[in-house]
């Protein structure tokens, strides 16, 4: 197995203590398979317990561990240390955010903007107690699925040149989410969202430098979402809407077999099982 001692140059900053951030170096014995996050834990556990960083899932799902690794925003838990092919690795907190401590940045701006674009399905038909499902085709799903994988890690905002100077810019993450919900066939609030994003602080501040899509660890492609929003703003969108499923046919097709009996005694069914289960409480 490949083993190597790698020097980690890590940017440190303690509030009310340091005036300016500075770099501190740590030597870490790295084995093949170790991610940057594991190296940071090695440092915290063995070399310097005062170092701060965020992480949770350590599998690229929670979006906590985004940081600026070797000149690019990346997820620490998804970055293989040896694949960076360097004997020194520089880690800084994500740019374009305030630093709270060391590698921990203040992401409130991201979440504030995320909330601004109404990131949920709005439909006058939706009720809090739906009795039927929506019908959505695979093609309709794939209109927005890619943008649905956003972790809110904030890598895209760190890469965006507009974000570097414009404190009011909604940012690639929020704009991509506006597109995600606008193109969802169940949603009917496209106009309300356009009021928010079809503005100088929204899609028109994007210059299509593409850095956000380049940096996104999930292939969300915010730049595409923003350009398609611009297109819909100018030419309009031809969106298909999906409705609630109609009533189920009375007579089930003969080729569809009965559902198996519930394996847990007394399990709730909605009454559509084989009739042996209890009727669901509703």
């Amino acid at each position, binding site marked *: 197995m490949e083993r190597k001692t790698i020097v980690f140059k890590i940017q440190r900053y303690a509030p009310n203590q340091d005036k300016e951030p500075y770099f501190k170096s740590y030597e870490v014995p790295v084995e093949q398979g170790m991610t940057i996050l594991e190296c940071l834990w090695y440092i915290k556990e063995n070399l310097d317990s005062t170092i701060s960083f965020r992480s949770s899932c350590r599998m690229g799902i929670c979006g906590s561990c985004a940081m600026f690794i070797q000149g690019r925003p990346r997820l620490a838990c998804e970055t293989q240390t040896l694949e960076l092919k360097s004997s020194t690795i520089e880690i800084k907190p994500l740019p374009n955010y305030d630093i709270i401590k060391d590698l921990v940045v203040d992401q409130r701006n991201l979440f504030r903007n995320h909330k601004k674009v109404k990131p949920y399905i709005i439909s006058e038909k939706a009720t809090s107690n739906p009795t039927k499902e929506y019908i959505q085709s695979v093609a309709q799903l794939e209109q927005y699925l890619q943008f649905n994988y956003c972790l809110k890690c904030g890598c895209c905002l760190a890469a965006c040149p507009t974000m*570097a100077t414009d404190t009011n810019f909604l940012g690639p993450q929020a704009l991509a989410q506006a597109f995600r919900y606008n193109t969802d066939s169940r949603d009917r609030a496209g106009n309300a969202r356009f009021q928010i994003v079809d503005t100088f602080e929204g899609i028109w501040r994007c210059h*299509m430098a593409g850095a956000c899509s*380049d940096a996104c660890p999930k292939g*969300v492609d915010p730049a*595409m979402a923003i350009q398609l929003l611009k297109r819909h703003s100018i030419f309009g969108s031809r969106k298909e809407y999906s409705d609630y499923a109609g009533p189920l046919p009375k007579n089930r097709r003969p080729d569809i077999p009965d559902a198996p009996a519930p394996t847990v005694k007394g399990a709730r069914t909605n009454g559509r099982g084989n009739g042996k289960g209890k009727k669901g409480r509703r």
Partner: protein
Amino acid sequence: MRYNNRLGAKGWVIGGNYSIERYLYILHRVSGLALIFYLMCHLILTSFRIAGAPTWEAAMAFVSGPFFKVGEFLVMCAGVYHAINGLRLIIIELGYCIGKPERQEYPYTPSIKKQRPLMYLLMLVVAALVAVSVVDFFIM
């Protein structure tokens, strides 16, 4: 106390470890500003014509050296790049040549990669036009 880590104008200029379009972006901004600067100089210079023929001759003599010739060539380059890259931006910002939303498998192919053939094509056009102006300015 939080430390403000916004990159500022540095964040425009320093392309960092990103794709080439990130550099085309700053070049577009610089060339656009350069063209405005040229336009203002040009207006001031040509306005000397009002003051009569001798002043005009003197103004023309002032800008006839090799320094201004290279300057004019750079304006030409900026104009060619800005116009052609501006065409690319209009195309892709209207959502053409950037592909369609689709399921992503690692390694991802985002829009910026999908528009790359267009980018290479148009940059070849820029190179060809700049080559023609090199001939026009310095050889012929």
